[in-house]
């Protein structure tokens, strides 16, 4: 637990379950624009992150810190786990 690869895999698992198919990742991909999540999916997605990683991300934080971008979200979660360990 805690390394970037593990976080990526777990996020992809969450997204695959929600989208019913693995999202097509490209560097800089936006979870909404590129993966196809909608505003209601955001609610479920952030809840799933909370359940999986123990991190509660507020809607405002999600927007303000650019966490819609998959890579930035991974970095955010990796940093959270580093600080928690």
């Amino acid at each position, binding site marked *: 637990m805690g390394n970037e690869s593990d976080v990526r895999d777990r996020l992809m698992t969450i997204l695959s379950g929600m989208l019913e198919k693995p999202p097509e990742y490209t560097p800089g991909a936006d979870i909404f624009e590129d993966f196809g999540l*909608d*505003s*209601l999916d955001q*609610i*479920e997605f*952030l*809840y799933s992150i909370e359940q999986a990683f123990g991190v509660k991300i507020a*809607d405002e934080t999600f927007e303000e810190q650019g966490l819609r971008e998959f890579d930035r979200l991974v970095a955010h979660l990796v940093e959270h786990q580093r600080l928690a360990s």
Partner: protein
Amino acid sequence: MIGIRDVACYLPEGKLHSAELQTRLGFKPGFLENKVGVETRRIAAADESTSDMAVHAFERLRERYPQEDFGDVGLALLCTQNPDYKMPHTASVVGHRIGLPKNMLSFDISLACSGYVSTVVTAKALMTELGVRKALVFTADPYSKIIKPNDKNTIALFGDAASVSVLEADGPLRICKSTFGNDGSKYQAAIVRGSGTARQNGEMEQFELDGRGIYELLKTEAPPSIRACATMNGLTLDEIDLFLFHQASAWLLLGLREDLGLSEERVPSNIKHVGNTVSSSIPLLLDQVLHNGGPLPRIILMSGFGAGLAWASVVLRTDARQ
């Protein structure tokens, strides 16, 4: 045992279609119909009040029972968070307009989406305590009066409706045991700021809905409450014929149904043509169930969840077992 005899409902004439909202507010095609699950919402007229809607519901009821004068009603409760006036209670206005007797107890109950279940159970408790043999339970909560037309979070979801339920000492749909919950720490999840004494200087009235708060309510509180209600009534979920859930949104209902392992056939929905009608959503479903020409279900579980945050579940039974 106190039970529900009948339910009558009213839908306003005005309609707001999802196609119009899609054009006006830029929703993605299909989002409103598929994810939110609403094609059309009914909207009260600008000059149509909460009591108007409740009275219309009662007129539907009276059409079914033209010989009944309802002069023996001993209790009238009205569930709304958008009353005609802050004072007096809207139940009093409605009671006057429909000719209810003076020698009865009547008041408003301020609850939103959990309101029908809570008001029905409250009515049963009062009927039991006071020896009242007939009661009316109204729901009428026109959210169109408080929603901002360009608020994408809310305008697509809610519709207006009203209902009246007749409860009697030997009503056929016996009201059994219930479960409740209230989490005031999340009171801001569904709130009309600037609407009461907690108003900040310069604050304007504004309905705000936190989708995350409601989502978490349905994930964390609703399923155990529903299971506990079944258990309290000596039932498993499999033994319950029909689940009438508050119609929050198609997406939330699907999640709740999946979390409980319930088939679609046992969880009817009407949100497509009326939207989320707040405390009227469950009685709208019950009205359909009672008047669809089929046999009455033996066991029904009703569950509502929403602003407060508050949630409530109750079992209704038509069979001989208690």
